[in-house]
């Protein structure tokens, strides 16, 4: 190879490296993009509505004549559906994880794990259909007073939806508990149940907690399920039998109409999006840290 060729190939290598770096930096630009778009419109929103009203007013009525901008009813709707989902997903998820990691024979485990994974890939719109047209009619037969749109039905279905997330992350954490801890407990005469609850679960505790935190974050950001089945009525209540509205549903509700740029109505969805982003961001960071902790200890 002569010097000229060498020089050319060195330049090509440089160009390739630079373009690959640009690809990596694009992911950072995405984050910056999200934050700046949200900030830009949120700041404009707060020029017209005071932060204090936004956080403390108990009525959310941005589309009516008497406009009120209290985010609490939307927040309560989000918290309510997420809570119901966690009531379902935490016990079932832990049981599934313990069953898979401590009880299930190898063959069954190999079948169950991919099934749970595949089901985690079901689009959320499908769960929405299921909540509105299968679970709600079922609930109406059991509880006649329940409304056609309610928090209970999407909450339950959301619990089933995030269950694979809880069980697979918890199972990973339990799997990382060293064999020697289990063997020591068995040698002392523990039953399988005792090993599971008194050794494996406490040892995997931070990983299990991380799975809950990440599941909560997923539940808070869930959109289609609640848009379809929970209703569009901003309602400061913790009654699971009546229609409510979550933060995500509100964004969908406004997006379905044709909202002109620059109006206060257009900006509300960014302000609500900002609250949603901050909530999930804090939860994700917290969850990731918990997960790192169990990895550091045992790997």
């Amino acid at each position, binding site marked *: 190879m002569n010097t000229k060729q060498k020089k050319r190939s060195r330049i090509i290598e440089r160009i390739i490296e630079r373009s690959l770096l*640009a*690809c990596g930096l694009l992911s950072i630009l995405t984050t910056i993009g999200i934050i700046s778009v949200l900030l830009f419109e949120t700041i404009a929103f707060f020029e017209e509505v005071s932060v204090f009203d936004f956080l403390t007013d108990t009525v959310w009525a941005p589309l009516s004549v008497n406009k009120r901008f209290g985010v609490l009813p939307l927040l309560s709707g989000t918290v309510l559906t997420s809570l119901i989902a966690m009531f379902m997903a935490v016990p079932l998820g832990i049981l*599934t994880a313990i069953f*898979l990691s401590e009880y299930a024979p190898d063959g069954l485990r190999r079948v169950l794990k991919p099934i749970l994974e595949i089901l985690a890939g079901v689009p959320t719109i499908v769960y929405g259909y299921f909540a509105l047209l299968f679970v709600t009619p079922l609930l109406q037969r059991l509880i006649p007073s329940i409304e056609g749109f309610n928090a209970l039905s999407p909450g339950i279905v959301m619990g089933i939806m995030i269950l694979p997330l809880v069980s697979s992350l918890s199972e990973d954490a339990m799997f990382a508990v060293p064999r020697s801890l289990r063997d020591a407990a068995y040698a002392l005469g523990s039953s399988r149940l005792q090993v599971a609850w008194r050794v494996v679960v406490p040892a995997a505790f931070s990983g299990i907690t991380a799975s809950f935190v990440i599941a909560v974050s*997923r539940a808070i*950001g869930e959109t289609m399920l609640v848009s*379809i089945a929970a209703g569009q009525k901003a309602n400061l209540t913790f009654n699971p039998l009546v229609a409510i509205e979550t933060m995500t549903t509100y964004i969908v509700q406004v997006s379905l109409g044709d909202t002109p740029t620059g109006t206060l109505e257009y900006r509300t969805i960014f302000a609500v999006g900002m609250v949603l982003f901050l909530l999930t*961001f804090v939860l994700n960071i917290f969850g990731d840290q918990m997960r790192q902790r169990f990895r550091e200890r045992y790997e």
Partner: protein
Amino acid sequence: MISKTQLKTILNRQKWNDRIFRVVAAIGVLIALITLGALLIDALIDGVPRLGWKFLTSFPSRKPAEAGIFSALVGSVYLIILTALIGVPIGVGAAIYLEEYTNQSSRISRIIEVNVANLAGVPSIIYGLLGLGLFVRAMGLDRSLLAGALTLALLVLPIIIISAREAIRSVPSTIREAAYALGASRWQTISDHVLPMAFPGILTGVILAVSRAIGETAPLITIGALTYIAFLPTDVGDPFTALPIQIFNWVSRPQKGFHINAAAGIVVLLAVTLLLNALAIFLRNRYQKQYS
């Protein structure tokens, strides 16, 4: 000291507790599986009778019996192709940079890594707001196919980066050293040896990303994708609809006929996403065995 009989009762009780718990745990797993099974069967029972060639090739209509998913299906296919064309090169490029060009503990690599992990947890509707503010309004792309594809590409980028990194990392370093020893440059080593070996793993990630993008509804609604479109997009600047949006539209209507249409649309959507997911899991398991 406890007596022999006491010990026996304790052990006996433990054994029973253990058995009872095993049954309880199995019931827990069953509840989950049965619910998920009910979901699938419910959609199948409602939707399959409605399926047919006419349903796949008709435009939406005000009469439920005449409506079909043609424009939604074509819109989804275009959208996914565009999303993959934009997202895959960028995602794989970022993964190559992180694995092959930087030190794992370098500052830039750590920042990108934390950033990607955070992006993976951002709710999809927030990406919709980004798309609305940036692509639709600021860049003036309007509610076009391109705006939708750009939004979805950013959404699936973390999935592609994370899985491509794993695939590249699993290529043994001896391969690289052998290539360097023969005088290959860095890029030659990567493009001729590392990438071909990492290909199945990267493909798995791409399939998972595509299957995620097909089912996404919220970000497309947020950027303003239309719910009623009776023509096919011919250009990346045209307005579009997609399968999950069409399903959402039908579910939201009160008439039973539209609910049946929604179920039939769901059967199509599920068939595509579940097949893709199963394919990805199959590929991954096969490929894991090969190297370890």
